[in-house]
């Protein structure tokens, strides 16, 4: 291993910090990066910043920063989860939603929304993410039990089970939308993903799942490399493949579920970022996984800032990422076809 990958990791890290500061300053009220840093610095010291418009600290700390950090964490989480799914399923086209987790979360969220439409009194800010999370987890359990034979999980049966369960859930979501009748727009908007109005609570929820998840995945990065040789060979090289595979699938799914539950369904971050970075950095997961976290965070933060601060009216973030991601996917697919 040479020094180059570490330089790129460091650059990505600095870029992420710069992006967070720049994005915090952007919006209806323009705040200069210097002022953002001054506000953050004085808040950390527990003081009230001097010589700065007194509404700025509120805008930075209570409005923008939680949303920005949530977007960064979700983007990073989805990208790392995508890289791990690709490595485990030995399929470069896998993404965090391959096992139907997004459909599970969407079904849960739709259920919570329809319940609140029908007047069942659970506060929606609580029930939607909670239902989404448990919907995702239930889907994962369903996919596992459908795919598992004698303690091994084959990639093909996992992917197939994911597709089957996702299609059943989609029908369920369709039915809920039908029931929602005129209020169906609430469901549709949730499904398209958004970071509007994210709070420090969301930052902390995602943080406590995504950071330990990231560390666990990094711990197994070298095992993931070996697993690229195929399950049988990896076993004979000392990797407890079946166990590592299961644990990492659960871990990546947890990360995905929490990401989806705070933001809705955001496509393609988990696909594009691992691909792009694998092209630049090579397939070594020890470098690739941290790079994906940083890259995913930068991308989603960037996309969210575009819709929040640049566009005349906010368009759903999931739509924006898919509009960028879709053509990119076509490009990769085409390139692969031509390379054969």
């Amino acid at each position, binding site marked *: *291993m040479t020094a180059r990958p570490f330089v790129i990791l460091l650059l990505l890290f600095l870029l992420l910090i710069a992006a967070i500061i720049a994005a915090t300053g952007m919006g209806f009220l323009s705040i200069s990066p210097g002022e953002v840093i001054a506000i953050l610095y004085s808040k950390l010291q527990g003081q009230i910043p001097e010589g700065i418009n007194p509404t700025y600290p509120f805008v930075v700390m209570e409005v923008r920063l939680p949303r920005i950090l949530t977007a960064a964490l979700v983007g990073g989480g989805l990208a790392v989860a995508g890289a791990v799914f690709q*490595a485990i399923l*030995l*399929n*470069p086209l896998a993404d965090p939603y391959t096992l139907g987790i997004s459909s599970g979360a969407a079904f849960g969220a739709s259920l919570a929304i329809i319940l609140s439409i029908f007047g069942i009194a659970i506060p929606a800010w609580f029930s939607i993410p909670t239902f989404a999370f448990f919907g995702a987890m239930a889907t994962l359990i369903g996919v596992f039990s459908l795919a598992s034979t004698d303690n091994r999980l084959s990639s093909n049966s996992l992917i197939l089970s994911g597709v089957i369960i996702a299609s059943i859930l989609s029908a369920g979501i369709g039915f809920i939308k039908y029931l929602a009748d005129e209020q169906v727009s609430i469901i549709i908007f949730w499904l398209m993903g958004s970071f509007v109005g994210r709070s420090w609570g969301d930052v902390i929820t995602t943080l406590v799942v995504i950071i330990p998840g990231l560390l666990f995945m990094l*711990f197994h990065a*070298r095992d993931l*490399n*070996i697993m*690229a*040789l*195929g399950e*049988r*060979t990896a*076993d*004979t*090289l*000392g*990797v*407890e*493949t079946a166990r590592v595979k299961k644990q990492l699938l659960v871990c990546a799914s947890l990360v995905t579920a929490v990401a989806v539950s705070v933001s809705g369904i955001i496509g393609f971050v988990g696909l594009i970022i691992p691909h792009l970075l*694998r092209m630049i950095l*090579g*397939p*070594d997961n020890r470098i690739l996984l941290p790079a994906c976290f940083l890259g995913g965070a930068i991308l989603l933060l960037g996309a969210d800032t575009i819709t929040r601060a640049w566009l005349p009216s906010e368009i759903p973030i999931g739509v924006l990422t898919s509009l960028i991601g879709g053509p990119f996917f076509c490009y990769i697919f085409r390139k692969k076809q031509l390379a054969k």
Partner: protein
Amino acid sequence: MQSLFNIQNLSFAYGKNSVFTDLQLELERGTFYGLIGANGSGKSTLLELLTGGLSATSGTVRFMDKEIRHYSKQELASSMALVPQHFSMDFEYSVRDVVLMGRHPHIPRFSAPSAKDYKKVDNAMRTMDIMHLASRIVSALSGGELQRVVMARALAQDTKVLILDEATSNLDINHTIGILRVIRKMVDTVRLTVIAAIHDLNLAAAFCDNCLVLQDGQIVANADVNTVFTKEMLQNVFSVDVERIYQTNQNRPQIQFKY
């Protein structure tokens, strides 16, 4: 001295399809075993049972001093290497990266490979004649080149036991003979134990010490090549007619088939 592998009363079934019933087998150290038998006779399954990839339905598989299922994968990896029948790779690792993966069981989790690891990798690559491919991407190699990479990976693992599941099936005759010579030499010099499923009977006859003959889930012979290769055995096990079996200068049998 205790035998290396000791299989007793082994039964194994895939679901309801029984492969082995009540199989007995002992394998010794420092021997080159050829595992032969028709397609579907259970060669790969037997190798999987020996490597601990599959667990016996009943009976025991002992490796050295304890049962194979009591070893951790890590322990087994430092004493046994496998070259599988099929190998493909979807990620763009270089040849050197893949051969270096053979050192995985010897490198602690967060350590970088040592100079010794790199030396073993270089030696393995030189032995398998793939030094010129070192920085090529494995997914761009031909079938035969890839098989040599996988062999090099197994050699880099530096184990006492080497298990080959038709590891030379994609190779040209030059590399096949080259590789089998290298392995033969390691059996003679460092007492490597090799268990190799081989389809080409003449190659098995030319290089192995003993041949294990599998038929319908039974080991019908386990003896040195001169004893095993008879017209009757070939007729019974492989249903082929043999013109003649002759001896080479090295006192090894070779078969001339009736086409």
